[in-house]
């Protein structure tokens, strides 16, 4: 048990450390896709806690990513604060938003919860567009500062990659711990049957609220990093419902239930556009010219996975056990019949 755990992590860390060199020097490719994958890992793992473990399907996860990103960007651009302040304060604002949004919407169940989070997500994106003096409206905010430590500025893609992925690894590590802890078991109990969970003394609402806030905090934290370790600019279009759906797709591909699955789902989905481009270039068609080709393919992938392998990618590898398959099946059934 312990041995496979260590081995898994050794491989995982090894891949993360070497990936940029392979991309840059062997493939002479941009680091952009694997940098973005780091953000997606944080987002999908945090959503997996909420959707996979606790069974609370949120379609507004991108909003918290946006709240973190905008909070950090506004503090940096308008108030001239250093990233060492904007990152913790932005994350804190994410926690407050998680509480303020989670408290009312978690009173709702199944479809209603999903619809409410969808609505809140859209409203927050509209707010980013509308609150021009603060958020820069449709154009967004730009000239966002890099993280500086002493005299060194983390401005290269390489440095961004390593910062983002070290936090992504920490997130995966802690979330995996959480999912195996008694708290994780309580979340699964809630997922199975809320009334029965109350009857073993679990404060269902409070537990759901806690994991909702925790999930929002990670998303907002990822957002603050996105502000300081990515393009150097943010715009409202990046935090749309499409992104929320993309994150859900990652969780489903990973098998709904497993933290490691969510990691694999995130990596696969974030590299998928590059793969499409690659396939297109072999066939000498520029597939990127086809409008929304990515979204179409995400949709197809999602449907294929739901129909054929509800156990997710790990099941194809033959790793997940019988119980986990059943878990995924039943969680999907639950979506269909509240």
């Amino acid at each position, binding site marked *: 048990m312990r041995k496979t755990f260590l081995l898994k992590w050794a491989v995982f860390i090894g891949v993360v450390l070497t990936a940029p060199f392979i991309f840059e020097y062997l493939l002479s490719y941009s680091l952009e896709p694997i940098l973005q994958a780091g953000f997606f890992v944080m987002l999908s793992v945090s959503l997996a806690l909420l959707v996979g473990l606790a069974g609370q399907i949120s379609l507004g996860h991108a909003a918290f990513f946006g709240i973190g990103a905008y909070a950090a960007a506004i503090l940096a651009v308008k108030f001239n604060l250093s990233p060492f302040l904007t990152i913790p304060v932005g994350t804190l604002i994410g926690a407050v938003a998680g509480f303020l949004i989670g408290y009312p919407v978690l009173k709702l169940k199944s479809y209603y919860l999903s619809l409410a989070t969808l609505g809140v997500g859209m409203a927050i994106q509209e707010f980013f567009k509308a609150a021009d003096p603060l958020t820069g409206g449709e154009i967004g905010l730009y000239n966002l500062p890099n993280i500086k430590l002493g005299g060194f500025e983390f401005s290269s893609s390489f440095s961004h990659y390593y910062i983002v992925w070290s936090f992504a690894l920490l997130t995966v590590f802690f979330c995996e711990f959480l999912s195996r*802890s008694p708290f994780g078991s309580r979340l699964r109990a809630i997922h199975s049957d809320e*009334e029965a969970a109350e009857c*073993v*003394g679990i404060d269902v609402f409070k537990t759901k609220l806690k994991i909702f806030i925790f999930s929002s905090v990670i998303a907002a934290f990822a957002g603050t990093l996105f502000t300081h370790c990515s393009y150097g600019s943010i715009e409202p279009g990046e935090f749309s419902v499409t992104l929320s759906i993309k994150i859900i797709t990652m969780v489903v591909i990973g098998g709904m239930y497993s933290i490691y699955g969510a990691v694999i789902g995130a990596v696969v989905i974030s590299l998928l556009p590059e793969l499409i481009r690659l396939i297109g270039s072999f066939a000498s068609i520029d597939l990127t010219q086809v409008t929304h080709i990515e979204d179409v393919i995400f949709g197809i992938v999602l449907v294929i996975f739901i129909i054929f392998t509800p156990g997710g990618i790990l099941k194809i590898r033959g790793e997940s056990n019988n119980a986990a398959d059943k878990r995924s099946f039943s969680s999907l059934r639950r979506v269909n019949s509240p």
Partner: protein
Amino acid sequence: MLQIREVFHRFGGLIALNNVSLEINQGELVGLMGPNGAGKTTLFNIITGFISPVSGSVYLEGEEITHLSPHVITQKGLVRTFQDVRVFEHLTVVENVEVAIPEGRGIGLLGGIFSTLKTKFIKEFVKEKAMEYIRMVGLSSVAEKSPDSLTFGQQRLLGIARAIALRPKMLLLDEPSAGLNQDETIILSEVIRKIHLKGVTIFIIEHDIGMLLDLAQRIIVLDRGKKIMEGTPEKIRGEKSVIEAYFGKKRKCLV
């Protein structure tokens, strides 16, 4: 132990409970019977906080619990099981019992992430305790399996193990023998008796009248939301006419 005073409840126009009062003493094993729709499960739902009654009140050890949340009532030591079992399918058999062990609640979200010596100790304690209860109901061979793979009877026993893992002062069992075969019913009666011997007060809804007359020290009969009878099994057995009126004459076990 448990006092129910003048509880009245209705669903729309249907009166489910019509000013029901009853009392259960410390250490008693009391049966609740009555035909379908008599209000038995509604009464359980009111006692355990799932339904707030229109009027009336419920007291546990002298303290009013009428409008408290189910999890608060559970934590006070009043624990129920369900007619339709309701195991947690996302947890293994042993984890189903682990979540119920009160000490485990000490490990919250942050405690789950940052494992200290104390949380490690609690985790081991919880696991050990859970296995103890699993053994008590004879499920140790399937402890690591998904509860989906258990028979209905085994799931029911798991439900009871989960309930006693909460170390209840009082246990409400809602038709524990429904859907069980004869052998399983015998094991179940044995387990219930064992729990009762440990000093747990038990209030049990049961359709298997033979089992109820055999187990209970006192029986309460409900019909159409009213308490129509109360007494020892001997007395209930004697009141043949009343029983026949509600259950028909075919039940051999009554004669």
